[in-house]
């Protein structure tokens, strides 16, 4: 009888240990199979927003796209590409598309008109993003004011980032 009582206690202890172990293992199971993935994804997100925030700060994007008379600068896409390239690590691929958002007065819907005439990217083709492991797409909304007509203008900036491995 005494031995049976002890074994009951030991059973209980082992059972509890099993529960703990299950919980502990489940914590790791929450993480995707490739442990580097979440960190990369988070990092790309942060990197992308940080990049766009720094470009947009103090109306920097205005100065890249428009001249002093608020005319679209020729070859501004290349200037933006150079700027972004200089701000990103060399193994990061990017592609930027800028849209001018306008409100359709009749329907009230937002209409997007792409304003960059050439790709703003450090890859030849957007297919490159399909061949790499992890990519992130970021949408940034940017407001500014056209000093000529005093109108508020809103731009959508779509940024796709990817990490190039094995370089």
């Amino acid at each position, binding site marked *: 009888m005494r031995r049976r009582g002890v074994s009951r206690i030991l059973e209980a202890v082992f059972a509890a240990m099993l529960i703990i172990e299950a919980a502990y293992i489940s914590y790791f199971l929450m993480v995707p199979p490739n442990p580097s993935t979440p960190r990369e994804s988070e990092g790309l997100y942060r990197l992308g*927003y940080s990049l766009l925030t720094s470009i947009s700060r103090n109306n920097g994007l205005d100065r890249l796209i428009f001249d002093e008379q608020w005319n679209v600068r020729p070859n501004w896409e290349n200037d933006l590409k150079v700027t972004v390239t200089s701000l990103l690590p060399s193994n990061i691929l990017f592609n930027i598309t800028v849209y001018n958002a306008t409100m359709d007065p009749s329907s009230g819907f937002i209409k997007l008109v792409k304003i960059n005439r050439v790709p703003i990217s450090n890859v030849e083709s957007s297919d490159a993003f399909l061949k790499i492991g992890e990519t992130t797409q970021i949408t940034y909304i940017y407001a500014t004011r056209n000093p000529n007509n005093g109108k508020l203008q809103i731009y959508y900036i779509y940024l796709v980032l990817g990490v190039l491995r094995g370089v």
Partner: protein
Amino acid sequence: MSRRRGQVIIYAALIMALLLLSVASIIYLSLTTYRKVRREYVEGIINNIDVEFEKVLRLILADATQLYNETAVIDQPRAYAHEKFSFWVKALIAQLSQLGVNANITLPNIELQPNKTVYNQSLEARYVNNLLKMYWYSIQSLSAIAARIDVDAPQLGFYGWSKTILILLNVSIDLDSITQVRRGSDLYTAVNVYVNKEYGLPVENLYNESFRVKYFDTSVGRWLDAEISAVENNGGGNYTLLLSKQAGGPLPSETEKILMLWVEDRRGIVVELYTYDHIDYVVREDAISQYYPDYPKTKQVYVFEVLMNGTWLWLNRPLPSPGTYPIPIPPVKQLRVYSTIHGVDDPNMVELPSQVEEWTPDYKRPTLRFADWRKRFGPGDKLVFIVPFNETGVRRQKIRIKWFHDADTPPPTYKIQISLEPPFAYIDNGVYKLQLVANPGYSDWIDWSISLHANDYHVEYTLYGYDVYEMRSGYWFPMKLPGGDWQVLVGPIRAIAYRENNIVVVPPLDQSIEGELYHRELIIVPYGVDYFLYFGYFYWNKTTTLDYRYLTLFGQISGTPDDVHTSKRMKYASIQLSDPNEFITGNFTTYNPRRPWLSNVMHRWRAINDAGNFGYWAAQYNNYNGQIMFTNEETYTLLTTNPYSSYSEVWAWSTYDYARRVLSYDLLTWDGSRNYKINAGTEMKVFFAGMIYNGGYVSQPYEDDYVWNDGSLDNGYPLYYVYPFRQSTGGELPQVYYRMFLESYIPVIESISY
């Protein structure tokens, strides 16, 4: 054995406790890690919203304040702000919805400051709500915008992020600091201003172009831009502006503390400040109370006009004043006027009906933007308001001209009503309806130029006319009338009918001629008073000989076929004499359809009796209704000095047709045997006021054709007796009020302060 068993139990319990704690910490760690991962996923979005939300509000406030400063209308910048903000919100939501993020935008009501008094200016409790607010035109002014955003990302397990953005520019003037200072060899007027923004942070990066100052130059009667010679940054948002006149030298010392200031910060946000936000006056009337202290003078209501330089006018005459303070240039909708009702000791003031009118810079003609409130107060504008002195014994009132700070102050509401029933326009002032022939082609309706409808009756007023046309069976006079059509301009509290041209119409010949007589005429109908005002200016372009001597300035006609033998008919006339303490009274004929010729009697006509003896008023009335014509000293002087003194009269007569009753102030009495030459360059200024009242009774008839000719009707026609009367209550009221329209008794501004 029992001891060993006890030890096992203790060990087991400890292990169990440790295991449970481990479970708890693992679960907490899991949860935290999960949230951290989610937070990092949305952090960029949140930062994007945070930065852009603030920027959008800042841009909108800058644009809205600049727009309001330019347009003086709040609707436009407010609509602009809402449209742009709505645009941004839609764009934001469109973006966020793709990411599974919900955003909710609200417009909070935030108290910016409690009410307080600064330099005798009562500043209201100030809030920002409905997106943006502007409190300007006071010694402390601010522009502010505020909105709140709440963000949830259910798909990412992220909830509850919110942010309220408040952006403002707050500027105040240190009135005590305004003084003359010397910098080097030059004298300047120095003004200290304090500039801060949201959360009380000082604005440190302003420079000369951030400021604009206007001062009032009394020598030209205008607001002028001051030269900002230097801006000294004293730190903490405190700047000293060194001001000088455009021509150099400090601002005029008498007006150096009467300033308007605009500040635009580097963000483009504008505020407008004035060093004063009201002007107080004590005004005394000299027309009635001192002569009739116990009289119930319910009709003594003045319509004052105030010009930009601070001059008050009554009947186009400046009120005597110990000084003037200029009216600043806020949007006209901000201007309000308050007054005591029960006299200068009344602790309460009530808002008076007021409006701003735009006139030409010489104040002679109203413009087509007559009562446009979508503008700033400016040169040529008149602030018009109606001040009651209509309580028995009240001789002085305290009056305050004020400009509201809140840019959302609505424009004044319309109290005057106008309706059109061609060819007539009816202007309803709440007491009477003034009917005007306002349609093109009807300007020859001499006796319908103005009709005053009140008490279920109307009297027609005749205006300027001259010469007589001889017909086969009699005479048509006047033969010539100033022509052209009236333009009716209506404001919230008074309407003006105006015409100005060189056209003269000749109704008997159905002709019109040009170039003989220039005329500029104004009929003014204020709200809620018992009178209207007529101003006429006539200039003879060329020497003209009238076929027959006759020129009438203005008059009254009553009686129609419909009111024959009714109680509505005016029965009596009273006319003040050249001794203003005297007036005479008589009655008109009674119409007899079988003997209409008996109606036609000249009661007072210069050719037959004492018609040349007249004063400042003439009235016709019955026992409960009456209408008066008052004239002023200038017109009276025209009538009673050479070359007209021998020909002028107040003509009183009853007509052949329906015994209509006529009273007219004639400059040249009719003479069917003489012509009359009026030289080129002759000017005539004519004023009269038409007033309605309750008439009165007559008594004590007597016989005296020199006073009031009966046309011998009492001889054989006892039913149609015509008499002068020794007593009349109908003449008492005009006798009380006539001084109201005389220059010698114009109200006086006793004191002025701000």
